[in-house]
């Protein structure tokens, strides 16, 4: 039960961090720390909490958005944001990203992941935009190309720049070496590990 409550706490905190950075960066269209934070949530706490952080952030940010509210876009963004969390969780589990591996290699992988995940996210949201407003998909993709490129390149840079910190976090937080649920003193884990509490 404690593990669950810690997980809930971590989700709430990461969602709050996502929202805070989103509103702080409102003046920079498509440059957001949120995507990395959702990925980090998945990487640190698992795919499910990561996906929840993404969905919950959009649940609030999509509704209270200075750029306006649109239900189809809202659903598309809230759904597609979860891919960062899910992939983050999978990366954490796979062990492809860890302190033991070369930092340059991890940074390169994170930059590529940031770029490709964002490209997927942009594609899904553009499809939703095209369906919602009856615009041809090619036109929707073309008209949003520059914003998409800004989003993808900025995310590649953010993901790469935050890689060293992200790789250190599991050890600092006392999380299992390959991600997964937050641990606590009550959990059946190896001795010497420290939980979130």
């Amino acid at each position, binding site marked *: 039960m404690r593990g669950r409550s810690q997980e809930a706490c971590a989700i709430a905190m990461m969602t709050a961090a996502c929202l805070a950075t989103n509103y702080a960066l409102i003046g920079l269209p498509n440059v957001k720390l949120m995507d990395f934070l959702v990925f980090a949530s998945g990487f640190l706490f698992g795919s499910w909490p990561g996906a929840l952080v993404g969905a919950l952030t959009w649940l609030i940010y999509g509704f209270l958005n200075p750029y306006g509210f649109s239900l189809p876009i809202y659903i598309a963004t809230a759904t597609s944001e979860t891919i960062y969390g899910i992939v983050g969780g999978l990366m954490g589990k796979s062990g492809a990203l860890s302190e033991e591996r070369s930092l340059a290699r991890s940074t*390169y992988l994170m930059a*590529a992941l940031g770029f490709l995940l964002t490209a997927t996210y942009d594609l899904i949201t553009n499809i939703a935009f095209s369906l919602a407003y009856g615009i041809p998909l090619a*036109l929707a*993709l*073309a008209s949003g*190309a520059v914003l*998409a490129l800004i989003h993808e390149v900025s995310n590649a840079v953010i993901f790469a720049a935050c890689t060293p910190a992200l790789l250190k976090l599991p050890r600092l937080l006392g999380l299992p070496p390959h991600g997964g649920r937050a641990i606590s003193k009550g959990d059946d884990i190896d001795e010497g590990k420290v939980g979130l509490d």
Partner: protein
Amino acid sequence: MMKGRWVWISLGLACWAIAASLLACYFWYSYELYRGLYERAMGQLERLTVFVNILIDYGNGTRTWFNNTRVSAGSTVFDATCMVAEVEYMAYEGPDWVGYPNNTAYLVVSINGLRNNQTHAWFWWFWDARAGWVLAPYGSNHVNATVVDGGTYAWAFRSFATWPPPPP
């Protein structure tokens, strides 16, 4: 090891391909956007303009054609000529000059530096499909000298010795 390297290279290439495709999309979109704007502007311009052909005959064998010259609808032959050549003129104002803007008639005294003199002057003609060149019986800024779409007009430097002066 080789396989791993190709995976890394492929990842980078995938990013590059997406970025290049997005840029291509952007340029295609910009091209279509500006082409549409250009065509709309041209459509509006065509409703407000006409095409005319203008001949300038210097009387020494030199003849210059200005075909398909776009001029504002409502322009006179004088206005159209000013668009293709350096024109000097004298204004004659008075109640007798009926049909001229502000009762002011223009006498063309020079085209592209060739000035009227004691024996020669500039005259203008319009082309009639049945009659051929017709010497205009009014000044080039008269209301009747308003150009029509597809109209053909000529200026020629001719002697006064014979009347009417020979057409271009």
